[in-house]
């Protein structure tokens, strides 16, 4: 089968999720082709995508596609999907992918599976396993349609190693289709290293008891070369920016180390961080759900435990 991957960039590099989706597409495509669609990009990115599994890259140049526009992107993606007779389309499960995928599915009379944690082929049938009910459940779906559009969570597949000998075709699109949605302005939150690509995340929850709690987390993040994130409650309460939100309706992150501070561990939060390699929980409530997902736990007051941990890490002998 032919598979279309909607690739994305961050800081002018393909996102790790896009590379993971290329690997997934490659494993499912068999004899078929993997087509990557990358809009809002510079042409020098294409080689990376080909080295990571794409047989063909369709690139919409930045001059024509200078920002995500759901209407224009749906139109392009639908025409690419038809032209290449793809039966599966993979997009990231983030504000772009989750916006684009359902619309594209309806445009193509296709099925739609959002937030997938697995896409597999069994006896010629594609099975999509996705999280539902706030991350408490998994459901496995198959579709009666010829085409399926899926958004896949980050961090569940491994990217292919770069293979410079793999060759592919490159098509450049120089004009964008007419859109019925106008993007007037884009305001980026500055400072925050992308949570999605962070190796270490220190996340705060309701238990921080106020915005100043994040000041306690920052030195620990700095010591570990990591970034600060949050569960939904402190974002909704205005203690921190919504850009820091990790969870079902926030970001999906897959760091090596995730330190959850004052986070109760509701499943909708775990839906965004459950694939972290090691979860450490610091919470005053010994019965907090987060300890069920944590490898290490400290029952205690974060205002004293976190600075103590920060100091102790700084005092660790350097790794040889």
């Amino acid at each position, binding site marked *: 089968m032919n598979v279309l991957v909607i690739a994305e960039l961050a800081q002018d590099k393909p996102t790790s999720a896009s590379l993971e989706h290329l690997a997934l597409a490659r494993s499912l495509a068999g004899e078929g082709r993997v087509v990557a669609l990358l809009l809002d990009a510079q042409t020098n990115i294409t080689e990376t995508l080909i080295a990571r599994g794409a047989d063909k890259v369709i690139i919409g140049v930045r001059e024509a596609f200078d920002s995500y526009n759901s209407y224009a992107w749906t139109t392009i993606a639908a025409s690419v999907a038809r032209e290449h007779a793809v039966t599966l389309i993979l997009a990231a499960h983030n*504000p772009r992918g*989750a*916006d684009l995928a*359902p*619309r594209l599915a*309806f*445009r193509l009379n296709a*099925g739609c599976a*959002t*937030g997938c944690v697995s896409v597999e082929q069994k006896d010629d049938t594609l099975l999509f*396993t996705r*999280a*539902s*009910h*706030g*991350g*408490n*459940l*998994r*459901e*496995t*779906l*198959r*579709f*009666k*349609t010829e085409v399926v559009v899926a958004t896949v969570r980050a961090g569940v597949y491994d990217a292919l190693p770069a293979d410079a000998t793999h060759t592919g075709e490159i098509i450049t699109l120089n004009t964008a289709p007419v859109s*019925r*949605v*106008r*993007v*007037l*302005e*884009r*305001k980026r*939150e500055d400072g925050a290293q*992308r949570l999605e690509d962070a190796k270490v995340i220190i996340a705060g929850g309701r238990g921080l008891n106020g915005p100043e709690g994040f000041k306690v987390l920052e030195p620990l993040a700095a010591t*570990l070369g990591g970034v600060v994130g949050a569960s*939904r409650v402190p974002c909704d309460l205005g203690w921190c920016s919504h*850009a820091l939100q990790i969870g*079902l*309706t926030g970001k999906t992150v897959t760091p*090596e*180390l995730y330190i959850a501070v004052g986070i109760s561990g509701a*499943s909708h939060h775990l839906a965004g961080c459950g694939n972290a*390699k090691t979860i*450490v929980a610091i919470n005053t409530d*010994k019965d907090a759900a987060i300890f069920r997902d*944590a*490898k*290490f736990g*400290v029952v*205690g007051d974060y205002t*004293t*435990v976190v600075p*103590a*941990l920060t*100091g102790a*890490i700084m005092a*660790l002998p350097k*790794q040889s």
Partner: protein
Amino acid sequence: MHLVVCIKYIPDPEAAFSMFSIDEQALKVIPASGLKHVVSPFDEQAIEAALRIREAHAGTRITVITLGNELSRNALKHGLAMGADDGVLLLDAALEDGDSYTTALTLAAALKKLGAIDLVLTGRQAADGDAGVVGAGIGELLDVPVLTFAKSIAVEKNTVRVERVLDDGIEIVEADLPAVVTVSNEIGAPRVPTLRETMRAARKPLVVWTAKNLGLNADHVGAAGSRSVRERLFAPSKAIQCEFIVGDTPEQQGARLAQRLREAKVL
């Protein structure tokens, strides 16, 4: 101006998950008897968004609509108590047990029947299925623009302008009316109806439509029309055993945790 808010009535998603069980034969989630149902929180915030738009535009009418069962009347009553003007219940055995596709198809047919709508609002996703497909589907089926994940909505003359939540900030997008907007939690807390408003809402009549009223063939909606088939439903396994770091003082706990992380090669 006529605003329509599409809402869903679901078992309280904030309830402990031990209140739910899985019927592995029927592949359904069964809420404990007596577990309260609520308007899906994002949908409740969509009602709030509609009320805020009406505050800025006198003479605006707000309709709440849901596809559900007899119990779902309560969802509409809640919307009316919050301040909506009228409620429509899509009620028919033929419409039940559908998927995101048939839900969007049914709601789009009802919206066409309502006619002359300026703006359709709904939550970014239902808090049970978490799919986030229906809003975009309605927009596609009605062939109108869709703006997703709104944290604020402004209507001016013939356009709607939305602040849209991104993973690294926000963007401001605009489309001509009619349009569909899906609302995210960043829009803020919905208002709580007073007892008086709740009593008054209880007396407001609801419109009830069946598949036939909507001109929909029973084979195309509900379970029969679904594009997806659920093969399996399960709770993910948790195999992790937490190692608690104890100590007499926080300093000791911090130092021991650092040591354990080093030993486990995490640091």
